[in-house]
């Protein structure tokens, strides 16, 4: 039957071309929307858009005056549940270091990149408790260099590297939470908790739940967004991701409907042809196979053209590594898994549409397909 399907399509190249184009546009949209939503998800997962809630003591103006009670981190975990990625206690001090005002942050080194988005400009991350990393502004202000020494709170540390982070406008020094706790002693503990939310969590609801939770357990703490703008931006990105996924689903649904309409038209136009096939001995399954193969050839051709167009568009239109959302750069690419998934979905949608439309033709008798009712003796 594939021979018949190919001959049929070749015989009517114009219709074939328009069918391929019609489906191809939808598949093209699908092939761009899926990587887009994945890219947006990646931004969220990579922490490109921080969704951090800063928890500090109520009625405290300066963060360094806040004090986090023991066990509060566990309470935060219990309130936020699976919306929470991790919670980091932060030792926060503003002090003079060798005569320069420095904001010192002691936080688990695991979170430096993932939560605080520090980027190493030179040197290395600290390998033990005798090393610190300086922010670029602090290094410039104090004249410290990678490999040099710095005296903090009466103890000498080696500067292992210089780092920078998004929105860093202060002179900061970074050390591990354990090192900072040991340096300042246990009595003042951590000043802040940073609750890092999962990308799928809604920051607004999480903050509200957290504050309600604090009230219910009688804890005098407030939760702030790390940055109100980033919060809104994060929410918008989540919306965008949902929207692009929804649009991708709509594109596939449109492929189904488009295939249905194309197959319906093809079956209507070819009733006589199908009647002849039935009359000369092809059974319903064979005729159904013919229609399916015809639709399959259109689907695969549409898909390959759309895939080529999508790759060209990504590679040369916007550039695979030039794709940025709100200043955060991410890769927009079609992985082999996406390509296979797209092909399977497009073909499944197309074949489903064809099957739905072909049922009435397949159930008709050869005589009615040939238009041989009463008075139609000249068919």
């Amino acid at each position, binding site marked *: 039957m594939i021979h018949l399907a190919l*001959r049929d399509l070749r015989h009517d190249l114009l219709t074939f071309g328009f069918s391929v184009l019609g489906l191809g546009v939808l598949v093209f949209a699908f092939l761009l929307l899926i990587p887009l939503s994945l890219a947006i998800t990646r931004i969220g997962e990579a922490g490109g858009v921080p969704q951090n809630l800063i928890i500090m003591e109520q009625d405290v103006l300066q963060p360094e005056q806040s004090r986090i009670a023991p066990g509060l981190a566990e309470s935060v975990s219990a309130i936020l549940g699976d919306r929470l990625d991790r919670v980091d206690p932060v030792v926060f001090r503003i002090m003079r270091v060798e005569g320069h005002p420095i904001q010192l942050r002691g936080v688990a080194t695991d979170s430096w990149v993932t939560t605080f988005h520090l980027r190493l400009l030179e040197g290395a991350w600290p390998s033990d408790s005798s090393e610190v990393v300086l922010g670029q502004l602090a290094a410039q202000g104090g004249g410290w260099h990678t490999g040099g020494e710095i005296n903090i709170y009466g103890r000498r540390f080696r500067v292992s590297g210089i780092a920078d982070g998004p929105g860093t406008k202060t002179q900061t020094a970074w050390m591990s939470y354990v090192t900072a706790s040991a340096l300042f002693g246990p009595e003042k503990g951590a000043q802040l908790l940073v609750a890092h939310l999962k990308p799928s969590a809604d920051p607004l609801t999480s903050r509200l739940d957290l504050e309600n939770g604090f009230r219910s357990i009688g804890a005098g703490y407030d939760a702030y967004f790390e940055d109100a703008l980033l919060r809104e931006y994060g929410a918008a990105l989540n919306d965008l991701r949902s929207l692009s996924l929804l649009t991708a689903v709509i594109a596939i649904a449109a492929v189904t409907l488009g295939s249905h309409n194309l197959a319906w038209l093809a079956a209507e136009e070819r009733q006589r042809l199908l009647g002849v*096939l039935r009359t000369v001995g*092809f*059974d319903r399954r064979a005729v159904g196979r013919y229609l399916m193969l015809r639709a399959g050839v259109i689907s695969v051709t549409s898909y390959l053209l759309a895939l080529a167009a999508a790759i060209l568009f990504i590679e040369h239109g916007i550039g695979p590594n030039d794709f940025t959302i709100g200043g955060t750069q991410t890769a927009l690419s079609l992985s082999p898994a996406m390509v296979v998934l797209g092909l399977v979905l497009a073909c499944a949608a197309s074949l489903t549409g064809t099957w739905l439309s072909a049922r009435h033709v397949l159930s008709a008798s050869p005589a009615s397909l040939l238009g*041989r009712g*009463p008075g139609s*003796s000249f068919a």
Partner: protein
Amino acid sequence: MPQIFVQAQALTRTYRRGSEDVHALLDVTLAIPPSAFAVVLGPSGSGKSTLLNLIGGIDRPTSGRLRVDGLDLHALTERQLDGYRRDRVGFIFQFNNLLPNLDALENVALPLVAQGRSWAQARHQAGAQLTALGLGNRVGHRPAELSGGEQQRVALARAVISRPALVLADEPTGDLDSGSAEIVLDLMSSLNRDLGATFVIATHNPRLESRATHVIELTNGRMTPSAPQT
């Protein structure tokens, strides 16, 4: 082989047109022996095509019994009916119903492909059949590139390529000039003799009567009482 090849008893086919029942065929009883060259005569709308549809298994009767080559068509499932058409019946239509996207060779090869032969085998056999019908030089032409007479000869080749026991022709010469019609009728007569297949030809052309071994006359869906049943 049974003495009666086609046997119809009280055969009726009724169509529903709006709220009205249209009897395309009413209470038709007939018998056609094997290898007959039977002609069904009657004006347009007399039920000739409906009778051929039922004998050919492309439609089912509303009531009555119909046996062809020992098979009770009424009792056949859809699948069995597909097999009946594929293995035992060849069709010729007035407007030939050749597939426009296939050339003459492929059109003729279709019934063999339906029987499960490969395209290569079917083409080979179809080429021999077309040559036998004087179309050896037209095998690669599409229907639109052939004359009306040539198209009908291709349709004839398609009808007999699988050597069916029964060939049904509905107004096979209705769209042809007299010269082409004679050629087609001569070919049908010789195939009837050579292959031993039973031919049932519906026509409103009374000149075919002279070639017929059996004549069936229909008027308004009924057998004409005076029709000879020899």
